[in-house]
């Protein structure tokens, strides 16, 4: 067996072990733990990059390593690294819990990575739960008021319910096809087309991923968890975790390729409801993270547009958008982290005068927000246009029209953020000093948002190769 096939997973398992031993210390050395975790995560990025072009199968073919999974593993590793970059100042997590914080983020990443390569139902389920359980612990880790507990409980309950749905759906699929291997299931799914059990089974099985991506009707956790969890945890949930879940959704939805109409129609409806609901409710939010939660629900709807086409172009654009979403969402969270250094929940009006307090952060914020709103030249614009293009190619005219109208609606609340950050006076708030790593991070994120928005070809070609692996 080629160890490199399992390289990233082994690395993160080792990393989790190191962090586990650190968590056993009686006296927590905050600084030291941070730098160890950060350094290890840099190694993780390198490892995932090194294994990018590995291909093969493991564990009795329950585990498939291909470009598709490796790209998203790299994205996960980058996401974890980015989150660690803004974790130097974990104001809202008790000091004795710091090693656990890093530990569970790492195990969550590990679970997600395994999820990406799993092509067998039980492996998928176990990996999904590994990542979910880590997050169940991370969400209430925040100290202070009760909002974290509420968020934690909500997250656990809705997660458990969606897991239940998923298991139920998986049992249908297993019952109908007598196999837990996706490779065996795919050819048999075609015969199930007349049989409702197939559609219902698949839709229920997707519930687990809908929960992760926060698609209606499994979105209820998002606003509370986004607001209630520590900023860094929210960042992870909103970026790396989202991207990986989209990847899994793609792999799983490919099962429905032969279903054609019924299955796709169900997804169309979910997509429309998700984006419309997300955008409309986001308008009235005052808390920044809560607004972003609703915006993430809307974005889940957009991504679903690419998924439901079940065609290469749609998959390419969904992959592109998932990766783009990681960076544009991170840029916004980066700003939240720097403005609310004490880890409090940032209200949108608190952004007032950011243009004076830190021009660089304002630039990052505006680019991130514009990318989320789909304004060029940014990855958000290109990604959204590619999604619309592929949906239109599959004949979903109304879906595209509704998506485009949604884009206009969303602009209203995104512009309100710009309005506060860019127009209002700072009042007594002092200037924000940025450390040089943070400056560098800002420049890098801005560069990525614009660079890959204007020159998307590389990513699209990579996504094309990856999409071929899944379909």
């Amino acid at each position, binding site marked *: 067996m080629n160890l490199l096939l399992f390289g990233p997973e082994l690395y993160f398992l080792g990393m989790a072990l190191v962090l586990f031993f650190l968590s056993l210390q009686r006296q927590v050395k905050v600084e030291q733990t941070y730098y160890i975790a950060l350094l290890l995560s840099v190694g993780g990025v390198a490892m995932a990059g090194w294994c990018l072009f590995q291909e093969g199968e493991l564990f009795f073919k329950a585990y498939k390593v291909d470009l598709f999974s490796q790209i998203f593993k790299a994205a996960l590793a980058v996401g974890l690294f980015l989150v660690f970059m803004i974790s130097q100042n974990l104001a809202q997590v008790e000091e004795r819990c710091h090693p656990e914080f890093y530990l569970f983020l790492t195990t969550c990443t590990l679970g997600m990575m395994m999820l990406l390569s799993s092509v067998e139902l039980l492996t998928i389920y176990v990996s999904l739960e590994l990542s979910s359980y880590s997050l169940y612990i991370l969400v209430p880790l925040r100290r202070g008021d009760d909002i974290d507990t509420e968020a934690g409980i909500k997250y656990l309950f809705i997660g458990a319910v969606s897991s239940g749905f998923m298991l139920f759906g998986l049992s249908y699929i297993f019952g109908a096809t007598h196999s837990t291997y996706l490779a065996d299931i795919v050819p048999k799914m075609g015969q199930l087309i007349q049989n409702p059990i197939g559609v219902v089974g698949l839709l229920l099985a997707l519930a687990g991923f809908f929960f992760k991506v926060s698609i209606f009707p499994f979105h209820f956790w998002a606003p509370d968890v986004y607001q209630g969890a520590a900023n860094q945890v929210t960042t992870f949930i909103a970026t790396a975790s989202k991207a990986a879940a989209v990847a899994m959704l793609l792999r799983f939805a490919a099962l429905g390729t032969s279903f054609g109409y019924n299955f796709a129609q169900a997804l169309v409806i979910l997509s429309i409801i998700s984006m419309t609901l997300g955008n409309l409710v986001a308008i009235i939010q005052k808390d920044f993270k809560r607004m972003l939660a609703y915006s993430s629900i809307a974005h889940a709807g957009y991504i679903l547009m690419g998924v439901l086409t079940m065609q290469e172009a749609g998959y390419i654009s969904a992959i592109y958008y998932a990766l783009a979403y990681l960076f544009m969402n991170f840029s916004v969270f980066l700003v939240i982290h720097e403005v609310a250094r004490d880890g409090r929940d940032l209200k949108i009006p608190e952004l007032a005068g950011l243009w004076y307090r830190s021009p660089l952060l304002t630039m990052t914020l505006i680019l991130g927000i514009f990318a989320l709103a789909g304004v060029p030249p940014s990855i958000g614009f290109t990604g959204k246009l590619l999604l619309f293009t592929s949906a239109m190619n599959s004949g979903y*005219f109304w879906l595209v029209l509704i998506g485009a109208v949604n884009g206009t609606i969303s602009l209203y609340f995104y512009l309100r953020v710009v309005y506060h950050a860019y*127009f209002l006076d700072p009042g007594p708030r002092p200037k924000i000093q940025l450390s040089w790593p943070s400056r560098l991070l800002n420049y890098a994120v801005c560069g990525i948002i614009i660079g890959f928005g204007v020159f998307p070809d590389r990513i699209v070609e990579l996504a094309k190769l990856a999409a071929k692996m899944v379909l």
Partner: protein
Amino acid sequence: MTEHLASFPVLSCMLLAPPLGLFILLFLKEEQQFLIRVVSLIAAGISFALSIYTFAAYDQKLGGLQFVEKYEWVKTFGITYYVGVEGMNAPLLLLTGIVIFTGVLTMWELSERVKEYFIFQLALVTGVFGVFMSYDMFFFFLFYEIAVVPMYVLILIWGSTRKIYAAMKLTLYLMAGSGLIIPGILLLYSTSGLFTFDMVRLHAVQFAPWVQKVAFVMMYIGFGVLAGVWPFHTWSPVGHVAAPTAVSMLHAGVLMKLGSFAILRVAMYLCPQGFQYWAQLMGLLAATGIVYGVFVGLAQTDLKYVIGYSSVSHMGIVGLGLATGTVDGLNGAVFQMFAHGVMTALFFSAVGFIYDRTHTREIHELGGFSKIMPVASAFFITAALCGAGVPGMASFWAELLVLVAAVKVFPVRGLFAIAALVIGALFALRVVQNTFFNEPNPKFVHFEDVSPFLGLPRMILIGFMIFFGIFPQTMVGLIKTSIIPFIQGL
């Protein structure tokens, strides 16, 4: 369409000069105001010079698409970077060059958040250049959006009168337009079966009639919002009034032309049957816009509102010209885009100068202003004459061409439009009289007149207006080289 590749990437340089300037600005400090202005001026100046060059160097005998640059951008989705110049966009590139260059000069005295202002202005103008030169729908739309969104920030921060309301209204209106444009464009993309965004190749495709009808009306309304087509114009007077001077110049002068140009370039070019189906409606809306703009403009007491509504009626002339679908009509429409652009830029530039000093734009308060600031007033009066369509000014020829064509195609609407314009001209002269030739307001007596340097941008604008008024053939001949093949393609 014949293509002639560029030996030197003139268009890319024209397009990239502003973003390059923007990039340099990012690294300057807010305190280095002079340097910031100079960098912006140089960036705008390069684009301006290159736009004059393409206008003059375009070979009319050769015709077709010249200075073409074409690179494959995203192969999988059929996106190409495809820019070129032909008779109908050369004047508009020139217009953009003129307005941005004079716009930077006009804002020379700005002192509040200078760096950011020029950054956003350069971003905006990049989008405008991009739209006028792109022959790929993806880039066309990308630049279109780049041109629209910075307006929000520009109006919000450096604007006046109800700016928060105006900025949001303008952005939402225009983005709602985009919401219609995207499905329209993508419908053509996906039904063509070519999977390319290349407009020239898509032009060769015979789309099914229903596709053309649906796509055309979506794009017509979508782009029409920006073109100020009645009844989707309501954002425009409010937006113009709220925007700072140079932004009003750019916006009324150039941005609204993006809308009408896009209707011509994308909607009419790709959906000829759709155009024929909807031409009556276009004519009706345009004629209504002309009459409406004139009469509502009469009731205004704020000089900028007067200009704002006159823009609605002048853009109606463009729309009417497009709706005729004849050589003269389209010729006139493109010429009018150019003429109105220069004229409105001059209007707003003149009003901006007056407002910066007096902080009022109320007509009755200014009364007799020509005795205080004769030169500044002269700029405004020249623009007003041009707006009224006085012979010897560029817009005279443009309006003449359009109205002659309109009376042939839509006799009743054409006559209404002419009548409205005559009345409008009469009242424009009354505005001029009330603003500039009554008793001077003693409050403003101490103000100094325009210095030669600040007068420069206005002089440039007047120069172009009169030049093309006296030699309209330079413009009409150029536009014709592309309109005639265009009409044959319809």
